């Protein structure tokens, strides 16, 4: 891992010093041992602040939206899941691929900092569930790669210098079980389902962290930002929250890149991915297997159609 960090720092240093890029998005060592938050640097001498480990969980790609109108070229470090976010932004024409330099990293598998028991002393933490279910541990798109990782559009096993550790920890071991939680909810009765989601929506604070961290939620002006038409407002009542939740889900339908950031950042602990995964599952069943943000050329399932799509409406 240390050699990988050295590689990252050296590359960022070189890119900034040569003027090839004007800024670099990466991670840095946080204030506690279990924190590796995002970092943006513009000076070559700041490259030593870069850090990477199993706490570098943030998907940085949505931060690129701050540069969507900029002519400056920006470099960004990505893990496998993050790289799909870049693809999302490029497909949505939010980011000009010429203006972004994607640096692919091998992923050791991220751990669950919620399981920290002693914030003073380092101890082992379990692998995040989303990493156990990971199907794209390697970047699907990158201009440069570090740590012997390889770019691959296909689902697969971890490649690169952290691969051994990742596989040992169980990255991707539960890829096939990723719809299990969805199935559990589907098995409930209508009223039980409704009660379950009401409870979740009741908790929603409408802070919009899920929206703002999401690389698929990239509208310049969100409909939830305007109450002028009287459709939406900030009232955090359960049904208004449900209105937000379902709308959000439909807006990212077929575009969600499965990075799980929305669920991670939710301060109320709403299992948002259980909604996103439901839609992914249905898309797979109805329109053929599709993983958003893996192939630049492939149109999203709601952006095209087939004449012989399932016909249930008659």
């Amino acid at each position: 891992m240390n050699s990988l960090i050295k590689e990252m720092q050296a590359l960022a240093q070189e890119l900034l010093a040569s003027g090839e890029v004007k800024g670099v998005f990466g991670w840095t060592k946080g204030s506690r041992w279990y924190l590796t938050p995002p970092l943006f640097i513009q000076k070559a001498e700041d490259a030593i602040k870069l850090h990477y480990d199993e706490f570098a969980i943030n998907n940085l790609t949505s931060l690129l939206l701050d540069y969507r109108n900029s002519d400056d070229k920006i470099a960004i470090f990505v893990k496998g899941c993050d790289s799909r976010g870049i693809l999302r932004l490029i497909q949505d024409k939010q980011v000009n691929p010429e203006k972004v330099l994607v640096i692919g990293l091998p992923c050791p598998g991220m751990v669950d900092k919620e399981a920290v028991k002693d914030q003073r002393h380092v101890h082992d933490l379990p692998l995040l569930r989303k990493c156990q279910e990971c199907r794209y541990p390697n970047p699907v798109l990158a201009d440069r790669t570090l740590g012997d990782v390889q770019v691959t559009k296909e689902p697969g096993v971890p490649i690169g210098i952290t691969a051994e550790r990742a596989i040992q920890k169980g990255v991707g071991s539960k890829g096939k079980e990723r719809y299990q939680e969805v199935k559990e909810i589907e098995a409930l009765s209508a009223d039980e389902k409704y009660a379950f989601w009401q409870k979740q929506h009741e908790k929603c604070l409408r802070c919009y962290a899920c929206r703002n961290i999401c690389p698929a939620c990239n509208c310049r002006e969100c409909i939830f930002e305007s109450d002028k038409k009287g459709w939406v407002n900030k009232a955090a009542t359960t049904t208004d929250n449900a209105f937000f939740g379902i709308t959000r889900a439909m807006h990212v339908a077929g575009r969600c890149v499965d990075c799980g950031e929305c669920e991670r950042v939710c301060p109320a602990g709403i299992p948002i991915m259980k909604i996103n995964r439901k839609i992914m599952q249905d898309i797979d069943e109805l329109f053929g297997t599709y993983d958003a943000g893996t192939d630049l050329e492939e149109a999203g399932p709601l952006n095209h159609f087939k004449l012989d799509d399932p016909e249930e409406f008659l």
Partner: protein
Amino acid sequence: MSTVEDKKQTAQDWEPNIVGFACNWCTYAGADLAGLSRMQYPPNVKLIRVPCSGRTNPQFVLRAFQKGADAVLVAGCHPGDCHYSTGNYFTRRRYLLMQRLLEYMGIDPRRFQARWISGSEAPKFRDVVTQMSEEVKALGPNKKLREEL
């Protein structure tokens, strides 16, 4: 949709409120024809004319439920007949997903339906509305996703 509001309903005389989003080119014309032909159908459906079934965005459906609809119908031209060539193909994909998502959220799929009804299919319009009305009547009033405050 405001007329849907605030009705004190009792079990006996309760009539469902169905909001129908009807494509201007097919279903709306079909409904018009049903009227012209003096066909009998339950007056429970309130039609909202949209340029194309593809114009009905998911929030329209949610808003209708919020405002007290007991069921929502999205209806447009048959696949292949869209005035704008392909609008209803997108509708089909979108609402196949939406229907499943709403079911996942605990909404009975009979409360949200999509149908293809052409301008000449007045009897079909009558049948769909009648059938839906009866189904919803059997289900009872929808209390889910209703707006608070």
